[in-house]
């Protein structure tokens, strides 16, 4: 297995691992939003400003999960492409070896078509990999934006929580947990972006 293929396998495996964590954290945000909604309901007028925020946080978490599911599908596709590319490259290398070792074989020329076909498939796999990476990067950017938005909302919700009287503590805990989750998601997604960025500019 050549260095490029190894790097691709490692990148795909690492983003899959990072995304599993992101889904889990997004579900935590969704749960925190539900919890905050219940508290805000009990708080009534004292947390009037907090109530729409909880819906927004919940929607944001759902969108994040949906995006991550798409990213996961793309990551699985990248894994399949990498395996296919690996197999086709192996075949191409063997076919090339045959053309150099069969010497004066009467039918040596007949290897040219399988050789050309294998080369074309390898190139196609490489192109498809780059395209899928570009698509995946777009989705990762979207999740990054969502994480940033969640962070801003967490800050805003802390301000709203400060007016919730005896519910202050509970709502601040919710705000803090959303903020922490947003930071963690941001970090995981950044690691995905770094893992994929080495594959260069992609042709969309």
């Amino acid at each position, binding site marked *: 297995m050549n260095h490029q293929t190894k790097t691709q396998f490692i990148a795909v495996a690492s983003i899959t691992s990072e995304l599993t964590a992101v889904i889990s954290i997004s579900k935590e945000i969704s749960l925190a939003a539900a919890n905050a909604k219940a508290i805000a309901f009990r708080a009534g007028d004292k947390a009037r400003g907090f109530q729409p925020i909880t819906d927004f946080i919940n929607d944001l978490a759902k969108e994040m999960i949906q995006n991550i599911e798409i990213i996961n599908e793309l990551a699985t596709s990248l894994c399949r492409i990498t395996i296919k590319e690996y*197999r*086709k490259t*192996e*075949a191409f290398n*063997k*076919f090339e*070896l*045959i053309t150099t*070792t*069969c*010497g004066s*074989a*009467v*039918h*040596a*020329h*007949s*290897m040219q*078509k*399988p050789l050309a*076909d*294998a080369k074309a498939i390898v190139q196609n796999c490489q192109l498809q990999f780059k395209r899928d990476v570009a698509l995946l990067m777009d989705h990762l950017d979207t999740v990054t934006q969502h994480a940033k938005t969640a962070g801003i909302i967490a800050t805003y919700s802390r301000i709203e929580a400060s007016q919730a009287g005896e519910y202050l503590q509970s709502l601040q805990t919710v705000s803090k947990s959303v903020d922490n989750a947003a930071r963690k998601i941001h970090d995981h997604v950044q690691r995905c972006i770094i893992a994929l960025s080495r594959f260069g500019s992609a042709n969309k």
Partner: protein
Amino acid sequence: MKSINIYEGSQHQWIMFGRDKNKPDNIIDSNQYMVRTANRCLLLDPGGYELFAPMMAAVLHHAPVEQITDLFASHQDPDVISSLSLWDQALPHAKLHAPKIWEGFLRHYGCESIEYVPIADNGGSLKLEAIELQFIPAHYLHSSGNFHVYDPEAKILMSGDIGAALEPGEAPLFVDDFEAHTEKMRYFHQRWMPSNPAKKTWIERVRKLDIEILAPQHGRMFKGDDVGRFLDWFDALQVGMAV
């Protein structure tokens, strides 16, 4: 890799490939066979993954890629057919004739383009232009779904692992001293063949065939009277000795 014509008829040839000097030391040496008619070729037990390149390079001395239309795998083992994914990519329109019960297993080697033609338990035949080859059941010798290929015109039985011998270096292509050769076969047959009743059934079946050359997948081939000597020796041998 050496290649030698073992039969030359008006309609077809049998070519044996083997004794590859560049083969990695830690894999078993194997014999591959090709039946060549005017426009088609059948490769029998075409070999392991590591053997694909030298095998194909050797084949190109006899036939162009597009005329390799059929492959045969006597059973599922890697020394027989782990090169399948590479043949699959080199020969996108070929057919693989192999035991029905091994289809789901053999496809793990990589079988995207090649058409799998399952051989039923009771055998079958393959028409290759003017000649017709027979798939002879040899189940449990040593695989649970196993076939040999008999050519009634050339009087050749490609016998898979039966008649195989494990010996180092470049062994001669044909058995020249049968008695001495039995010691090279004994352990292999006792250890890799699990069933005495299966062995008896196979011997009964094969004794009815007119065989001039018995061509195993490993070691030397048997010719003329040595074919009968081998059947007698195998008949008397107790197999399945690892219990």
